[in-house]
């Protein structure tokens, strides 16, 4: 870190003494650079176990939320047995938001890192989120609910810790309900030059009995990989009056 940057950081720290990002940014070593395109990685049987994503923690909802949640899961399973899919946001081409967008099928994500901001772009739906490193988090009640909420981050050694609040109740991790008090904490770290882990923890004192944590692992894509655009301009799926996803054929 050069002297100019250090003095800038100290200046910010003086202005925002409570900002956690500033405290950690004063550490001597420069943070790693996540910039690049990363593909979803789950590891094969002969892969190095330390690079595979660890198993998620148990998902435990409070009883009043668990009952309808399980009922919906059962309805989805029954529909699948009939060869039908119940309506969901994805089938209607609505973007996934945080945290789902961090792991959509095999679509890669691109990280663009600067000293003040990390920008993350998912190839699926071209979703964009911005993680501010130079300012504190707002109060939950001051953040307009949206797909990406408001994310701030700070470095803890080689780990980027990202705090996100303000996710819209309709933006869910595959139907997992949440309240306005949901907080998503990510710990993003490179395990090697080519492997990146994003450990995602969802806390919600209203809906969850305890925090739910899962990890998405990524492997760096070839350096010449170019992100592909994704604009949903030909969605032939539609939801019928019974809430079932159908496919509109051109010969219909």
């Amino acid at each position, binding site marked *: 870190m050069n002297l100019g940057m250090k003095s800038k950081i100290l200046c910010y720290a003086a202005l925002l003494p409570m900002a956690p990002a500033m405290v950690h940014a004063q550490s001597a070593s420069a943070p790693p650079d996540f910039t690049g395109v990363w593909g979803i990685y789950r590891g094969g049987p002969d892969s190095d176990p330390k690079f595979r994503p660890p198993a998620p923690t148990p998902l435990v909802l409070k009883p009043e939320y668990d009952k309808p949640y399980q009922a919906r899961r059962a309805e989805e399973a029954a529909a699948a047995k009939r060869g039908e899919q119940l309506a969901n946001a994805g089938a209607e081409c609505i973007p996934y938001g945080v945290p789902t967008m961090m792991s959509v*099928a095999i679509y890669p994500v691109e990280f663009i890192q600067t000293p003040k901001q990390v920008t993350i772009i998912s190839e699926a739906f071209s979703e964009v989120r911005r993680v501010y490193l130079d300012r504190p988090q707002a109060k939950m009640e001051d953040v307009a609910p949206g797909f990406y909420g408001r994310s701030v981050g700070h470095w803890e050694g080689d780990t980027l810790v990202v705090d996100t609040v303000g996710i819209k109740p309709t933006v869910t991790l595959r139907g997992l309900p949440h309240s306005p008090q949901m907080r998503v904490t990510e710990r993003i770290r490179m395990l090697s030059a080519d492997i990146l882990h994003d450990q995602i923890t969802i806390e919600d004192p209203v809906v969850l009995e305890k925090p739910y944590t899962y990890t998405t692992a990524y492997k760096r894509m070839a350096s010449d990989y170019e992100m592909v655009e994704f*604009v949903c301009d030909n969605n032939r799926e539609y939801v019928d009056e019974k809430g079932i996803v159908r496919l509109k054929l051109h*010969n219909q």
Partner: protein
Amino acid sequence: MDSIERLQMKILQAVRAKVCCCALMAAGIFGAASPVLAHHSFTMFDMTKQLTLVGTVSSFEWTNPHSYIEIDVPDEKGAAKHWSIEMGSPSILMQSGWKFNSIKAGEKVTLIINPMKSGQAGGFLSTATLPDGRVLSNGPRQGPPPPAPTQK
């Protein structure tokens, strides 16, 4: 083959092994692995059946969230029946060698598809044999690479 490719192979094999994507997603979210979601499940297609369509392409739609091949297939009496065949997204298809101009209207192709359970004239692509003889699949990196450009 790197591990990403292995993962992609596994996903495709899972679909082919009659495990629908939604089951894969469900297993992913609360099973041993991290949540991985897909655009939609494939429950509307009969992944246990395959049909071969030989016909003339009326349009190739390189679009999101899915690409489509519209094709007219003559029956034994010569009357054409129109089929709509769903594929992956351009992003997914590019990983198996497809390009936006891999096929054009008017070209003859052979498609192996998983038909719709409803009996409608639609399906999900398994593999396509292009006019130049290349066989491209609907999953990542299943097909051979495109031929090297030749000088005219």
